[in-house]
């Protein structure tokens, strides 16, 4: 019989081992799923995990997809630490894209270098605006932010869809639901010729470092951690929970909005009905797999970016549905949560041992 026995102190080693164990279990399960689907499992795993990054272009694509995931994930991680469950990042991303894209569409074609920085500001503001609604509803009316932020995601995506089907549709675009292509001054400069790798990567690294310092070294970061761990202790300390709810939602909204701006002014280059293949939701997994820690989130972001590339490649090479990506992502989070029990508990076999029973 298996039993869980609490550890006297949380295991530091398991904090780091658990994601690796989860990854291993995901691979094993993936192998079994591919076998059940009747394809060569070894080949499929190769096509999913290795082939997409076997050349330098593949690696650059990996980073392009990792940028929004890390950016959103690190913001969500701060929120999750404070027990603020923003799961509407997908909508905040869309609003960031709308705000930033709106400017790019609106400015005359002979505008200058000021457009891009202003788009960044607008992207951030768009995300913050959309995250401010659940923040207001929670702090003023006590409404659960999980449900409100998610519902607002649907609203934001519909709004974006309306814009590109309607007022913002490219008049010369053969009636496709797309905006015009952004001008050069509204597009992120590339870091490497021949790839889609853009300035957003550097921006992301700077932001990750900043959040890391904030969490580990400042009073605000400490407040975030205390509010998440025990809200009453935070009250006792005199930390204002409402202010922290606002902080966590605005920060994660800002970063999701920035990610939206980066997507439309970088890899996509215009507004389309679907600016993100679910980055806002996948970033939830990124945050957890990354242990809600900025460095971990960065690694996890790259890993989950690979799941997107892998899914696409699998469709091309073996004709499997792209939904495989979602299954792998879900399984990874699943196994991670299961393995995390080992941080606080250890598994024992059989009946409790008598400690010091002999004298």
């Amino acid at each position, binding site marked *: 019989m298996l039993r869980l026995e609490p550890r006297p102190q949380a295991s530091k080693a398991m904090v780091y081992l658990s994601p690796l164990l989860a990854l291993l279990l995901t691979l094993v399960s993936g192998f079994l799923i591919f076998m059940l689907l009747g394809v060569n499992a070894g080949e499929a795993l190769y096509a999913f995990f290795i082939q997409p990054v076997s050349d330098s272009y593949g690696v650059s694509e990996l980073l392009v997809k990792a940028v929004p995931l890390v950016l959103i994930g690190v913001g969500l991680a701060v929120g999750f630490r404070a027990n603020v469950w923003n799961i509407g990042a997908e909508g905040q991303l869309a609003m960031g894209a709308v705000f930033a894209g709106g400017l790019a569409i609106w400015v005359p074609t002979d505008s200058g270098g000021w457009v891009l920085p202003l788009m960044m500001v607008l992207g951030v503001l768009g995300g913050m605006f959309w995250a401010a609604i659940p923040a207001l*509803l929670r702090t003023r009316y006590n409404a659960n932010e999980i449900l409100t932020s998610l*519902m607002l995601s*649907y609203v934001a995506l*519909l709004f974006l869809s*309306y814009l590109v089907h309607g007022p913002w549709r490219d008049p010369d675009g053969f009636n496709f639901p797309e905006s015009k292509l952004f001008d050069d001054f509204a597009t992120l400069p590339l870091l490497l010729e021949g790839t889609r790798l853009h300035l957003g990567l550097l921006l992301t690294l700077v932001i990750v470092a900043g959040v890391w310092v904030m969490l580990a070294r400042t009073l605000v970061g400490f407040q975030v951690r205390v509010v998440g761990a025990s809200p009453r202790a935070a009250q006792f300390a005199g930390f204002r929970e409402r202010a922290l709810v606002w902080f966590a939602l605005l920060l994660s909204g800002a970063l999701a909005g920035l990610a939206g701006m980066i997507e439309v002014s970088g890899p996509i280059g215009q507004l389309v009905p679907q600016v993100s293949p679910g980055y806002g939701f996948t970033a939830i997994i990124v945050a957890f797999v990354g242990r809600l820690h900025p460095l971990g989130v960065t690694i996890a972001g790259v890993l989950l970016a690979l799941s997107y590339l892998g899914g696409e490649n699998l469709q091309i090479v073996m004709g499997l*549905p792209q939904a495989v990506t*979602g299954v792998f992502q879900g*399984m990874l989070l699943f196994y991670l*949560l*299961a393995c995390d029990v080992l941080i606080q508990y250890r598994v024992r076999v059989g009946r409790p041992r008598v400690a010091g029973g002999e004298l």
Partner: protein
Amino acid sequence: MSESVLMLQAVALTIIGAATPLLFAALGEMVTERSGVLNLGLEGMMLIGAVAAFAATVVSGNPYLGVLAGAAAGALVALLHGLLVLSLLANQVATGLAMTLFGVGLSALLGAGFVGTTITPLPTLAIPLLADVPLLGSLLFDHNALVYLSLLLVVGLSLFIYHTRAGLILRAVGESPSSAHALGYPVIRIRYLALIFGGAMAGVGGAYLSLVSTPMWSENMTAGRGWVALALVVFASWKPGRVLAGAYMFGGVTILQLHGQGMGVSIPSQFLSMLPYLATVVVLVLISRDSVKLRENRPASLGRVFRPSA
């Protein structure tokens, strides 16, 4: 005259069609939450139920078997959820999100082969005699089996929760698992049962979507209904009768969306599609505003990890 009757009938069918899947999912979730477990994976369970029901119907040709398959699939996923949150003591919020993301992916993968396939939907069962009553007869007594079942479930759960010993134990477990454990009740087992019931009902709700509402399978076809059901449970203060009212109110909002354009309203379809989501937010705000009252109705241990200790 006959035109307005037809109109009325169309409206009623829209409401019932939108309300019934929500009613199943929300009633199941209400039972789950009464035991103290928060199942944020409802959306994923509905999707899995929808795809399983559709696939089983395609394979067997029998939509009733499809409903059973939907329930079983939902229950199975709920069991997995229970393994994490009840046996492995995982965070209920995080696990629920994982369930939903997993359900979206898995249902899309399983359903990939069924996109575009058609089935015979769940037939309507006119209740003899009653259905022949003019006007009301066809409104109330000419529906498919799941509609009747959902209404029976409301009555059954009201009786169960307030008038049976098992219902009392369920409430007690949700109120204070440690006290219930101290009195010798198997808290974890009871929570598993409540969670599995909730999963099965979410599966039936999903089955309704793929077997009746559309009837076909498409990726992500629940479009947030699982989350709406979660909000309904809060709105209903965990009471079966109010879940019914909430689900039908929500169905009413959907009429605007579906019939809005037909009635010649010149609002872009996207804005009409936003209505159910906005309505959910508004309802949630209205009900949550009174935090004292909310706390009194809410199962006290909702969402908290419980480990039967010494």
